């Protein structure tokens, strides 16, 4: 745990950074829900690849939650980084594509039975 006390002097006291960090947490939860669905499909239809994709999506959810914490830290310091790095955002968009592929795969696999 960090003992650094965030300083909000000269800034909107905390609410903008807080909403942004919460936004990351909610996104992580939404990824986790989809991970659960893909994982379930993988087990129900006995498809190890689909189950593995579910596990990967869970890891992505954990990463999104962790980045939310990193963002909260960044935004908690005056003069800290404000603009998010472009890569985590690109990664989140890629995760949606991955989840969509998993969703379509789970539908196609089960519909073909």
């Amino acid at each position, binding site marked *: 745990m960090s003992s650094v006390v965030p300083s909000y002097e000269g*800034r*909107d006291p905390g609410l*903008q*950074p807080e*909403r*942004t960090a919460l*936004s*990351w947490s*909610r*996104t992580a939860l*939404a*990824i986790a*829900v*989809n991970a659960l*669905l*893909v994982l379930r*499909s993988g087990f129900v239809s006995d498809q190890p690849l689909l189950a593995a994709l579910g596990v990967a999506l869970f890891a992505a959810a954990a990463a999104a939650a962790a980045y939310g914490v990193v963002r909260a830290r960044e*935004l908690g310091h005056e003069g800290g980084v*404000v*603009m*998010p*790095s*472009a*890569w985590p*955002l*690109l990664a*989140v*968009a890629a*995760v*949606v*594509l991955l*989840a*969509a*592929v998993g*969703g*379509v795969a*789970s*539908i*196609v696999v*089960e*519909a073909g039975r």
Partner: protein
Amino acid sequence: MAQPRWRSEGEDPDYRFTLANERTFLAWIRTALALLAGGVLLFEFASTIGPRVLVVVLAVGLAVVAAALGGLSYVRWRANEIAMRHGRALPYSIAVPVLAAVALLGAATIAVMILLG
């Protein structure tokens, strides 16, 4: 890691706008994930309504729209950020009306299937 070149163009916008843009991006991502979960759940649990083919088409369609929204959300975040850095108006996007149309059509189709089923 190296950042895209457009990030050094123009001037840094007010941090609140940058954060709002980030949250908007995440809101679109969550919308895409919700559509995707809706499609998968529809397929998994709507075994008693409508023709199976229609359910499968709807579910896959929702997943495809989710994938498109996921890609679009990044493109829009980037476009908004660039526009703000140059003090230009935010670019207009047809994503909102298209999403509304998809949601309306999807919900209406499911409602009809439930009523007729």
